[in-house]
């Protein structure tokens, strides 16, 4: 792991997570929280959608190629 930061979370939430990890048989609470955060962050990023922007000219060029290769009718 590279550089790390401390983030404060409510004590009650922390113990709730500990109880959950006990039930799941997970040993490392810290790694579990990191995984949860990564999953949540990734989900929000996905919701932002694709950032692939094509100009009209580029889109037409691609459509022409796809048609000429038989991928589009």
């Amino acid at each position, binding site marked *: *792991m*590279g550089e790390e930061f401390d983030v404060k979370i409510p004590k009650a939430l922390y113990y709730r997570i500990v109880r959950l990890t006990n039930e799941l048989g997970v040993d490392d609470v810290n790694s579990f929280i990191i*995984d*949860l955060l*990564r*999953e949540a*962050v*990734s989900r929000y*990023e*996905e919701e*932002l*959608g*694709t*950032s*692939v922007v*094509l100009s009209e000219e*580029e*889109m037409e060029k*691609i*459509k022409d*190629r*796809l048609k000429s*290769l038989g*991928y*589009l009718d």
Partner: protein
Amino acid sequence: MVSRPHGGRLVERVIPESKIEHILTESKEFFTYRVDDVRYRDLENLGYGVYSPLTGFIDSVELESILNNMRLANDLPWTIPIILDVDESFKSKVGMGDTVLLKYNDIPVALLHVEEIYSYDKRDFVKKVFRTDDPNHPGVAEIYGYKDYLVSGSIEYIPLYRDGFEDYFLRPKETRLLFKMRGWRTVVAFQTRNVPHMGHEYVQKTALTFVDGLFINPVLGRKKKGDFRDEVILEAYKALIKHYYPKNSVVLSIVRYGMRYAGPREAIHHAIMRKNFGATHFVIGRDHAGVGNYYGRYEAQEIFQEFPDLGITPFFFKEFFYCHGCGGMSNERICPHPDEMKIYISGTKIRSSLISGQRPPSEMMRPEVADRIMEFGDPFVE
């Protein structure tokens, strides 16, 4: 909506055709460096965004992060280092800020804007990437044969090299638009390096049952003697799709890529590549990207647990076989019958049938596929 590119942005670093001549004139003053087949294919993938968000060969900070954390320094999952090795002579002639012209088979293929030249520990590299330092592992042997330094820097791809498969290659920008125009919101990608047999077909069709479209993405890369030739693989797939797949449910398009045989780590890398093409799901079968007995049968599936933020969903499959008890294709998760009722698909048996000019058993390969392969006479790499 198709998958968001890895890291949020699809990178394209390709010199437009209108500017190539000018760039080539200018590049006569640049130091020239020749790259091998694998690096050329990496350059194409960097250029067209298959490796998004990478913009070039990685530096020492990224290498350390990938080796130790299986992530880029910005925390994004990334498991296979994309590197270019250079020797002492390169190091003595090229410095930070220089531009180098990269050539493959004497054809200019990219400009490299040098940022760092650094040494690396090959043993540490192979133990982390391949989980072994056994020089008999082909990926390990390749790294041990690399030169002693790595060079990092962004690249600009020069699309001049031709291998005859240009019409079978769709760039990520093109597949993304194609998926969108077909109305596919979910797309499962299937990687292959072989001609299709019944096991492949049933994995693909089972996956397709749950999504809108199937993206069959054969890897064209270095081959060893006895492998099926690239054109044979493509024609065999075209025959299968024509006779056995619903129209407009499948896209067949290649990717040029040099396999590393890094098993679990490479499975993640393959998933990221398909995410950049726009796939939302990716098929991982038995011993994906493995070689010999270096990895467990389903180790490449287990590693996905470590990447809840990958942004592409794996579909895990067990081995398919024909079962007389079930009366069709089945797999160990759904079949209750004993082994003697099963016909396991054997690559060796399929090959020997094809070599002798006979169709393999229909439980193993579709007759139309077998016929198309046999039309080639000798379908294998010499």
